């Protein structure tokens, strides 16, 4: 019961904020809604028992990436928001049609998967540690060590790339 209430409230918030992100005229408002949206998603993770991912979601997404967005919006939005020039959206019809098609497709998959349920959940994984953080960490540093290192390389490259791109040519 409590789970259902939490889910529906959070789902409503997530979708509502997402719509506001996409429709807000002022990009700064979009960013604010995006933060709120991410916080709600983090709360959803908590209800799913994924505390570590929730904390990372808040720390990296809400506290890091979106701040970056806010900075860029404030830097480039000073004079000329693009939507102020031409009424209506870009490819409005095409875009919404495509989005609708994806929705239908995904819904079809969902319905189909419900009709023929997937294999029953495998037995719970047994890891030598307990606690969500420890378990995620264990997996990251054992089975998924190579992807982990690749991800860190990716971040390093992205960092260098961003600095090179954003630097003013002197």
């Amino acid at each position: 019961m409590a789970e259902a209430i939490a889910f529906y409230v959070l789902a409503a918030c997530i979708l509502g904020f997402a719509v506001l992100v996409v429709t807000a005229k002022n990009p700064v408002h979009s960013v604010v809604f995006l933060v709120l949206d991410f916080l709600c998603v983090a709360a959803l993770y908590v209800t799913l028992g994924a505390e570590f991912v929730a904390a990372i979601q808040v720390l990296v997404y809400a506290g890091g990436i979106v701040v970056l967005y806010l900075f860029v919006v404030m830097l480039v939005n000073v004079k000329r928001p693009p939507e102020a020039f031409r009424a209506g959206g870009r490819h409005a019809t095409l875009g919404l049609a495509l989005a609708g098609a994806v929705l239908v497709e995904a819904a079809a998959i969902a319905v189909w998967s419900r009709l023929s349920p997937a294999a029953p959940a495998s037995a719970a994984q047994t890891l030598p540690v307990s606690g969500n953080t420890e378990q995620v960490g264990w997996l990251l540093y054992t089975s998924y060590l190579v992807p982990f290192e690749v991800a860190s390389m990716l971040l390093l490259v992205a960092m260098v790339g961003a600095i090179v791109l954003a630097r003013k040519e002197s």
Partner: protein
Amino acid sequence: MITPTHYLLLSMALFTIGLAGVMTRRNIIIVFMSIELMLNAVNINLVAYSAQVQNLVGQVFAIFVIAVAAAEAAVGLGILLAFYRNKETVNIDEMNLMKW
């Protein structure tokens, strides 16, 4: 009772909203943000199924997605700033040159 299907529907709706944003908005920063929404939709799925099947691999992948999103945001916004400096616009329709 909240089943994974509920989460799937939620994530689907979120993905669709993000997609609509990508397709219809003209401000490239909002387009970027819509992509973040779509990535989050994926993450919700991963985490929900990870909880369902009692296997933490889903959460591990969610973390990878977040890492990739961070990298994407950094590089994407870097490109955007460089672009803005040259063209003085963030309108995605005006970004129609392969080089200048």
